[in-house]
């Protein structure tokens, strides 16, 4: 009775976090080489099922962990953003491999320098491609973040566009304040001789 009034909600939140961290449904946004290593991670030898994150859900609505597996190129970036926006809260994002983290050794006209240019990312797993052990390590880091209630990225940038009007979905991606993230032509082109 001497506990502060927030005791029960806090404990409840911990219990929810505990449940969430062991029941991650993944959406593998597999584009490139890392997908082969992801297959191994799912496979019998490394068996990601031990961590409760084994079952790939290929529907963003049913997933709460988006794993960006492989290089994201500028052409793919709106697709990635769209998939992210379609996921329901709470959701987390793991960047699988250096290409998804920073663009890796592809620093050129077509490769987006990291998935975090487009979507917020919780955990970066290095490696080109990362070994399955590294992936599991990254997953456990994410689990700890979820338990500490630090992991959900959308808390940092506000709620995302799950409530976007249907008509606006064609102008993807749309930010919570209603503005679009799509760059227009002037913003897209390199400025003052500098490249971006």
């Amino acid at each position, binding site marked *: 009775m001497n506990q502060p009034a927030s005791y029960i909600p806090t404990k409840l939140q911990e219990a929810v976090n505990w449940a969430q961290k062991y029941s991650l449904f993944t959406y593998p946004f597999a584009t490139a080489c890392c997908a082969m290593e992801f297959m191994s991670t799912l496979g019998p030898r490394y068996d990601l099922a031990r961590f409760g994150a084994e079952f790939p859900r290929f529907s963003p609505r049913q997933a709460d962990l988006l794993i960006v597996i492989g290089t994201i190129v*500028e052409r793919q970036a709106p697709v990635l953003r769209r998939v992210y926006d379609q996921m329901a809260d709470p959701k987390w994002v793991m960047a699988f491999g250096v290409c998804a983290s920073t663009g890796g050794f592809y620093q*050129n*006209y077509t490769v987006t320098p*990291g998935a*975090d*240019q*487009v979507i917020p990312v919780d955990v970066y797993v290095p490696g080109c491609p990362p070994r399955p052990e590294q992936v599991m390590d990254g997953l456990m880091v994410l689990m700890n973040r979820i338990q500490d209630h630090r992991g959900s990225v959308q808390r940092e940038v506000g709620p995302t566009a799950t409530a976007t009007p249907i008509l606006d979905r064609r102008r993807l991606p749309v930010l919570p304040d209603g503005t679009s993230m799509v760059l227009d032509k002037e913003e897209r082109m390199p400025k003052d001789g500098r*490249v*971006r």
Partner: protein
Amino acid sequence: MAERLLDLLLAELPDAVVEVGSYLGDEIALVHRDRVRDVLTLLRDHESSKMDMLVDLTVVDYLGQSPRFEVVYHLRSTTFGHRLRVKAGVPEDDPTIASVADLWKSANWSEREAWDLYGVRFEGHPDLRRILMYGAFEGHPLRKDYPQNARQPLVRRPDAPPTDELTTRLRLHSHDRRVE
């Protein structure tokens, strides 16, 4: 085997051929741009060549030379097993060449790719649009005067980490000795 191909070419279409030669075991024929269709049709249909496979089609950008572009066709015959490389120069001010998409179906996509990345226009192509880059992209990225890091992003988070400094540093340090 392949020397006979060059002889055939010189005998049948002597005015279309600029130069023939051989380098490292590859037979090469450099032909006039306007006659490239005639040459390729002959090579495909003649009974002693029968080059029924267009193995590859690509473009080389010799920036600063004339003609600037060179379209390179690699041909192979399934019947005889011989190969030939046919090249044709394309000037910078009029980067067009006849399409061979109706001779070989494989030319359809590879010509689209050549147009996308090098900006060489293939006259008579049924569906010449970008294939590897997106429609909003401007310029042709594999040309030597296109900077390596010049991205044209479609979407960015407003709070995305800036990349200018990183990519510029990379550009100064490592590569792109030809781009300035």
